[in-house]
């Protein structure tokens, strides 16, 4: 169960109060009615699904109700930062794609030479 820092409530709260809301910083096209099918598919379906540093949206739905953004490592599931909705993508200082200190099971489990 994750522990998530809500930038509006300014404290760490249990994942039970939150709802994940997909990849962050995907803006709805302004003239959406006029974009091509490819552009629409890109906007609506295609995602980075990063292994490692990812930017995503959460909503503190059973708290302050606000949507906000988070930078998280999808291997360690560690949150690197959270910040309010509307802010541009925040750089995460000094973080490699995935944190090597963390054991994924495929790393622990024996190799098969």
């Amino acid at each position, binding site marked *: *169960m*994750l522990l998530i820092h809500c930038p509006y409530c300014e404290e760490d709260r249990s*994942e*039970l109060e939150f*709802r*994940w809301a997909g990849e962050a910083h995907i803006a709805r096209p302004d003239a959406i009615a006029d974009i091509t*099918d*490819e552009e*629409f*598919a890109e906007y*609506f*379906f*295609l*995602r*980075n*699904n*990063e*292994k490692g540093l*990812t930017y*995503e949206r959460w909503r503190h739905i059973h708290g302050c109700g606000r949507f906000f953004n988070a930078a*998280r490592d*999808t*291997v*360690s*599931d560690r949150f690197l930062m959270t910040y309010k909705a509307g802010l541009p993508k925040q750089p995460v200082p000094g973080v490699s794609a995935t944190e090597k200190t963390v054991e*994924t*099971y*495929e790393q622990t*489990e*024996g*190799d*098969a*030479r």
Partner: protein
Amino acid sequence: MRKYSVFALAREALRAHKGWEAQWSSPEPRSSYDVIIVGGGGHGLGAAYYLAKEHGITNVAVLEKGWLGGGNTGRNTTIIRSNYLYEESMDIYEHSLKLWEGLSQDLNYNVMYSPRGVMMLSHNTHDMQSFKRHINANRLYGIDNEWLTPEQAKAYCPPLDISKTARYPINGAALQKRGGTARHDAVAWGYARAASDRGVHIIQNTEVTGIRRGLNGEVTGVETNRGFIGAKKIGVSAAGHSSVVMEMAGVRVPLHSNPLQALVSEPLKPIFPCVVMSNTVHAYISQSDKGELVIGAGTDQYNSYSQTGGLQIITHTLDAICELFPMFRRVKMMRQWGGITDNTPDRSAIQSVTPVPGLFVNCGWGTGGFKATPGSANLFAHLIAKGEPHKLAAGLTLDRFRTGRLIDEAAAAAVAH
């Protein structure tokens, strides 16, 4: 290849089983192959097997970054069924089920396919409408799936609580008798053994780190932790990491990778005769040959490659299990684990050519990948060999996300008014 049989077993018994050879050989990689399959799970190993068996393409390597079947093949709850709603789904899952039925014989390897029946519980009017829609579609398509009254459901699965006082009383069930379970590891090992026997190279501990492309953008091979290996064609079947591998060729796919957890109980004497699923209360359960109750939990809500999930997902599933089967409350959870499922927007798989010549992808099986293994592998082999999809998999191409022609099994089970 040494044939497996009760006689071979008896013969070996007399010499302390010293005569068994390795089930698959582990050769050094060649400098290049006609086809490289990325991912040594059931889908990838199976695809290699069918490439050799049905298309005569044997200069094939399966590259696995860890150990065979170490991904979702070895982490799922082994449920097999084909009673889906849409033609595209019925086509591939029924094709798969038919292959399951003869797989042990085809591979000369007992994968323990056990058609003990998959029963889906209906708890309300909407469930009933949705299940009847499935049952009728399945019947007209030649797929077995029947409606049971609560009493018939209880007769088929005695532990079931069909009392009217339950929070969500059961008003019937849909049963596919040919559905059931199989031994997940055996599927990977059986395919590996049979493919290896036909000349396919099974190469473990070899992680693909890049996909090299030629002047016209076509694939020319893969970079690995053991160096470059050339390939005319590359089939990506790396469930859980499909996005990561495809990104190496600059191809984005519409996927979310989510943790999916499961758990088993301590071993019990036979108590649970079939597979039971309930969408309304979110639970599915069966009993393994070892006697463990095998229970599938839901996916965690966020993207993750951690192969772990929250305890709340487990407890939520057990709430439902104990509500359906109150006598299991004193049973104990012995082991829990997680896998990584690749989920598409319409919860149907992708098996497709890609914008990159020579690169083919098989992904997005979500939580349904194990049951699809033989069918998916078989049709993926066809796609790679022929360069175009088999008609049974024609609906699974990437193009549908542009046209909007989705195969939305999830939406078809939309929540009721």
